[in-house]
């Protein structure tokens, strides 16, 4: 599956990991949001905005200077990247403000940005698809370090920091507590609105990073189509990871696996040569099967019957004996 070529690892596994990077980033942010009993459906639009900001800032006009074809960037790349991340984080804060302070329901609050965000992205790109010719920028989405895609290091870093923050400090417990019972959490002295605000800001940051990778991957920013419907995949990834959309207990690792499962399905379908018009149907069937397998009730019904046929006493009967 994995082989070395020109000092890079190649293969289906690497391909899936690489392509799943944006989704994994979104899933990390989305996990925390969902754990507080919220939801963020604006991440797709924020991806578009992030790409639009970074692409228009780096620009990349080809001009002839002294007869030589030279690339002119408007601002240095690090500045462009930081600005893009800042913008999406601010947008995440906007979501957080609407939800934690104004008290708008999460799905409605982020719906505003879902709709408006595409508009903002198109305004930034002036309705055009901006192509980035500046080579170093392409490293984010297509570069390799130690034979592995650079985007995986971004995911690894974000995951590592987040995992440490939620499991080695009290952050994770507070988030879970808020998701289970926000009123009781406030009464226990947790500053509920502060944490709700923060998880949306963080989700914005994750979306910004995902946007950079997607933009860099195709060397262009497309306000209309970048990250289209990816918010649904992100929610699905969290859900496939065994996290309840009702908030509370969460698993970051589960969400990452969820994201990889989704990307594996997509890649496998393409690799098998399934006609594109039925890929979505196949994808949904696989998702249904996974969801059924996760349901305790379904497992009980199916597997207890199966166990009875095989003559294995079920747990309940065993207890009686």
């Amino acid at each position, binding site marked *: 599956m994995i082989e070395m070529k020109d000092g890079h690892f190649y293969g289906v596994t690497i391909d899936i990991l690489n392509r799943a990077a944006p989704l994994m980033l979104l899933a990390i942010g989305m996990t925390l949001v969902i754990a507080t009993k919220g939801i963020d459906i604006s991440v797709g639009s924020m991806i578009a905005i992030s790409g639009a900001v970074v692409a228009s800032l780096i620009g990349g006009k080809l001009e002839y200077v002294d007869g030589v074809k030279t690339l002119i960037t408007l601002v240095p790349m690090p500045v462009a990247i930081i600005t893009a991340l800042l913008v999406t984080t601010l947008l995440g804060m906007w979501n957080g403000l609407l939800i934690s302070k104004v008290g708008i329901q999460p799905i409605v609050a982020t719906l505003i940005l879902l709709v408006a965000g595409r508009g903002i992205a198109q305004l930034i790109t002036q309705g055009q698809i901006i192509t980035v010719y500046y080579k170093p920028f392409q490293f984010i989405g297509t570069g390799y370090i130690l034979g592995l895609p650079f985007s995986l290091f971004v995911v690894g870093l974000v995951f590592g920091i987040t995992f440490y923050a939620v499991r080695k400090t*009290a952050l994770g417990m507070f988030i879970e507590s808020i998701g*289970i*019972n926000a009123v009781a*959490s406030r*009464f*226990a002295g*947790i500053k509920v609105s502060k944490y709700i605000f923060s998880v949306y800001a963080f989700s914005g940051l994750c979306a910004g990073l995902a946007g950079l990778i997607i933009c860099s991957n195709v060397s262009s920013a497309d306000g209309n189509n970048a990250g289209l419907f990816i918010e649904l995949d992100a929610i699905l990834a969290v859900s496939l990871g065994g996290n309840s959309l009702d908030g509370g207990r969460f698993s970051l690792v589960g969400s990452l696996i969820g994201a990889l499962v989704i990307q594996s399905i997509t890649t496998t379908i393409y690799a098998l040569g399934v006609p594109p018009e039925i890929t979505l149907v196949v994808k949904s069937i696989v998702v249904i099967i996974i969801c059924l397998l996760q349901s305790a009730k379904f497992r009980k019904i199916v597997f207890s019957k199966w166990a009875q046929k095989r003559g294995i006493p079920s747990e309940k009967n065993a207890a*009686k004996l």
Partner: protein
Amino acid sequence: MDDANSLLKAKGICKAFPGVKALNNVDFELKPGEIHCLMGENGAGKSTLIKVLTGVDPLDAGDIFLDGKAIAPKSPHHAQQLGISTVYQEVNLCANLSVAENIFIGREPLRFGSIDWKEMNRKSQELLARLSLGIDVTQPLERYSVAIQQMVAIARALDISAKVLILDEPTSSLDAQEVEKLFGLMRKLKKQGLGIIFVTHFIEQVYDVSDKITILRNGELVGSYETVNLPRVQLIAKMIGKAFDGFESSCKTLKLDILQERRNNFLQVRGLGHKGSIHPFDLDICKGEVLGLVGLLGSGRTEVARTIFGIDKADSGEIVIEGQTVAIQSPADAIQYGLAYCSENRKTEGIIENLSVRENIILALQAKLGWMKHITKKRQDEISKKYIALLNIKTAGPEQLIKNLSGGNQQKVILARWLLTEPKLLILDEPTRGIDVGAKVEIQKLILSLAETGMSVVFISSELDESVRCSSRMAVLRDRVKIAEISGEEMEEKYIMQTIAGV
């Protein structure tokens, strides 16, 4: 036994939860036209028995007979169809639907395929009239007090089934008048041949209405007795499994000590008020005293606590703690100043049900420290084990989810949560509501011993005798106004009641 004469009969019921044997070989028999009390301490298995009878939880072993026929209720809905209806301790209705909708939800009268609103409202009115309840059934349920919501729940249960009615602590949120009304109704239904299973913690009420008492302890059947043949002292002794000690006298002496040692004010409230919930009031709380807040339900007792604790932001007045004016904007602020508040609504404002006992205990302390100063897992384990032992919390271990604990033990976990923050002022709102006699006494004793160590306690309770026993001073509220303070010799039930009533 004579099966023909029994309405509902359960034999050899066993039920185990992870780590706990909730019911072990329990028998139970209910006759038609009988009000049968189910008694026992928290965690004795009363709720579990009811859940098994009504199909909420499947039973591990045993048989249930209704009218002599074996039944196996699969769900509460199935149990209802068989003729067993339940009204739970916490009202299980939809607050934002109308009263009539709540009564007929899931079985609305239809006319030409759509809901016949007129018929539904008329029937609801009729049903409630039978409970002597004349309210507007088209109003949303949340407009009415918990007491009325409870009556609506009973009306619904009655209308659905007519053989066995189970009332799981229906009276814990009712005032005396409403309780009497409910009892009148129960007696009427009893005459009609209905069998009623009644779970309550109020001993007086047991002797008021019941014909028979079945006592459980630690999941085992202690026995079934005719109410008239079982003196109160024996009932309590059988419930807690030991002789009742003289709590009364120990309290009185403690109280006198506190009065003599009354020290300086810890907290002074001047003109604090919140529009729409509590009129501006003054209140002094001394170090090491237990201040009782008394008044009828809805008189503003809880609102006083909420305003001091920063849940409802005060719109007038000031709070002075140890000589310094403080601004309390939120519970988080209040906790920093050494305040703690144990809400009366354990389920909605107290426990975090899907977190473990350990996490529930350390939550407030961790919130006080902030998220960065993480209490290590090892320390958390030590703390939770210590408090589980200290408060005698019955749980399989610190990692047990709190929702699997009985009400009284959940209350103890919340108490542990606040004690851990080492508060200087502990506000307890109905800490003993819905918990059994044994745990009640434990909590009352705890309150007094805390006060002895110098902690101030504000104690809110609907049970006057409990307030009198524990408090060293009292503030009386009526219609959201603080009307009087009572101390010393005046603290006597009759006088307090007169003050509350305003005569």
